[in-house]
């Protein structure tokens, strides 16, 4: 068998391929789920359906999607201009650290001041964490993939260092910061739920990102740089400035996400402030094919799986790490299957026939 470039694709193809990827994911993860002693049907009911059946769990899904919207947007903004920021994890943590520093410095502030200040602190810290790789890329041409990746463990170490050292909780000596002041806690937006204002902030930023990326000159030039850097340079687009802008905007979004996670949900800094949100953001952006509305949908889906994995862990004794396995399998199946939007499979026999007809070797 070999793959041949296809000219046009029928309209039903993409939805059919997405369905195929979903079926493949279910089939491939059924084995590990059985290994865990659960029935795949029951597990996927927990992962996909159960969280959407009560209003409380729906709101929990939206809550869990909040950091993923931030990191998903971060990856999306960078990837669109061809800048492979894989450092969302470190930038998210940097934002969380920075906002904690500000809350410790100014414990009592009203929300009107604390929310914008916290967001800016997180965004600036995230951008700062992404600055060195970005500058090394545009000034010296050093691959940003490696440098952004390497800064992720550094951010985690910095976080652990602060929590084990200067920021250790003074009252209980746990490795976590003192709680943020009451004025810093983002208000909950639905009674009886943990869903907080940060979700609204994430949606507002998503709309903003959508407008900038699809309706403005900046969005167009950044897409051009991502799709055809040489062509973009030839038509006079400042490549370096575009890349730098995309890299910093991306890192700032991830950092703001870290700040929102501290202020909205945790209300203190802990070593577990990010459970791989930066990496999952890459999954979000990729599955969404770098589209902002799709990213919100994908973030919600992955949050659904995460919330479901937690409840499946309680109900079925299936380790919650299965949620990560399902997410990663879904990613790999999707990117693998979607290749066939552009290619079709040809059987070897047919190829031989074509060769004979063409008279070539």
């Amino acid at each position, binding site marked *: 068998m*070999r*793959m041949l*470039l296809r000219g046009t694709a029928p309209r039903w193809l993409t939805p059919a391929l997405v369905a195929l990827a979903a079926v493949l994911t279910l089939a491939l993860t059924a084995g*590990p789920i059985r*290994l*865990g002693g659960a029935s795949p049907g029951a597990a996927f009911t927990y992962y996909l359906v159960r969280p959407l059946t009560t209003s409380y769990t729906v709101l929990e899904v939206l809550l869990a999607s909040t950091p993923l919207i931030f990191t998903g947007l971060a990856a999306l903004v960078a990837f669109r201009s061809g800048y*492979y920021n*894989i450092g969302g994890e470190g930038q998210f943590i940097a934002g969380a650290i920075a906002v904690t520093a500000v809350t410790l410095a100014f414990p009592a502030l009203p929300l009107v001041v604390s929310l914008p200040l916290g967001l800016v602190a997180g965004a600036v810290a995230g951008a700062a964490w992404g600055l*060195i790789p970005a500058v*090394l890329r545009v000034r*010296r*041409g*050093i*691959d940003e*993939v*490696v*440098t952004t*990746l*390497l*800064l*992720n*463990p*550094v951010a985690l*170490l*910095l976080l*652990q*260092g602060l929590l*084990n*050292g200067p920021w250790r909780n003074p009252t209980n000596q746990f490795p976590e910061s003192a709680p943020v002041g009451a004025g810093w806690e983002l208000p909950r937006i639905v009674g009886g739920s943990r869903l907080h204002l940060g979700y609204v902030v994430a949606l507002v930023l998503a709309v903003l990102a959508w407008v900038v990326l699809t309706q403005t000159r900046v969005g167009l030039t950044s897409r051009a740089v991502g799709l055809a850097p040489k062509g973009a340079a030839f038509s006079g687009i400042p490549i370096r400035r575009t890349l730098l802008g995309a890299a910093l905007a991306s890192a700032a979004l991830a950092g703001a996400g870290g700040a929102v996670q501290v202020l909205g949900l945790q209300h203190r800094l802990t070593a577990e402030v990010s459970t*791989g949100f930066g*990496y999952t953001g*890459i*999954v979000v952006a*990729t599955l969404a094919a770098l589209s902002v509305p799709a990213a919100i949908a994908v973030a919600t889906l992955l949050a659904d799986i995460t919330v479901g994995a937690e409840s499946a862990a309680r109900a079925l004794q299936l*380790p919650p*790490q*299965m949620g*990560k*396995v399902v*997410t*990663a*399998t879904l*990613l*790999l199946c999707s*990117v*693998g299957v979607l*290749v066939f939007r552009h*290619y079709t499979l040809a059987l070897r026999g047919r190829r031989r026939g074509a060769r004979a007809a063409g008279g070539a070797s």
Partner: protein
Amino acid sequence: MNLIALFAATLVTVTPLLYATIGEILCERAGVLNLGIEGTMYAGAFVGFAITAATGSIGVGLLAAVVAGALAGLLMGLLTVSLGVNQHVAGIGTTLLLIGLSEFVNRLRFGGGTLTQVPKMDLLFPGVPFLEMYALTLVAFAVVAPLTWWVLRSTGAGLRLRAVGENPEAADAAGINVSRTRYAALVVGGALMAVGGAFLTLAVLGTFTLNITNGRGWVAIALVIFARWRIGPAVLGGLLFAVIDAGQLQLAIMPAFAHVPRELLIALPYLVVIAALALAGEGLRYPGAYLKPYRRI
């Protein structure tokens, strides 16, 4: 500072890096950036530990890790060679999958709360200064590094591997099977990465802990670039990283550094790698077909 201890610690730190870096060089010289490296090391560490725990034999555990690494390479091959998926995405996805699977099975089999210890590898020449080391370390320096250097430089297999990484069209025209060569590089490379991971559980710790690789795969990716895809400089770069890493361990137990946060010292080698890349990373010539899938039109 205790030189003998520093030397011994350097050898321990450099060993997983050597296996991983050499494995990654094979992949990248064949034209595939394997960001699955972190997950492959993680899976190698876990599988080596789990199978050793189940069988009681370190040899069987190590062999199982090799098989796991080869399978991880096959998965990368399916994605990037056969299907031609974006290599960044395929690699990150593979890493997420392998870490998730390892942690899932770890929780199932060893989640009882008690730490499972497995037998650890024996040191060669125990107690002899500068010669005390694990067999895997000796193999890395005396066999794996020279052998891959020689294979890449002087054998037909090495020439084919470099050819499909530089110019797959020309290699194909010359009768080299591009896909098969890339698969072979990914499988062997993956197996080497997994051995590096297994060293962490079977030689260093004697058990498995979460986050055990702690970004060592990313360090190996950086070392490959720092070494400009050559084995010799990769060994030197690995030693440089390991000396700094072992040095920070030595610093941490010195009274003068007692008040410096431990984590800051652990982060030091990562920062040094970034600085080294910043200084040495300009004007690089990547393998010609780096990141590019190959298909006959």
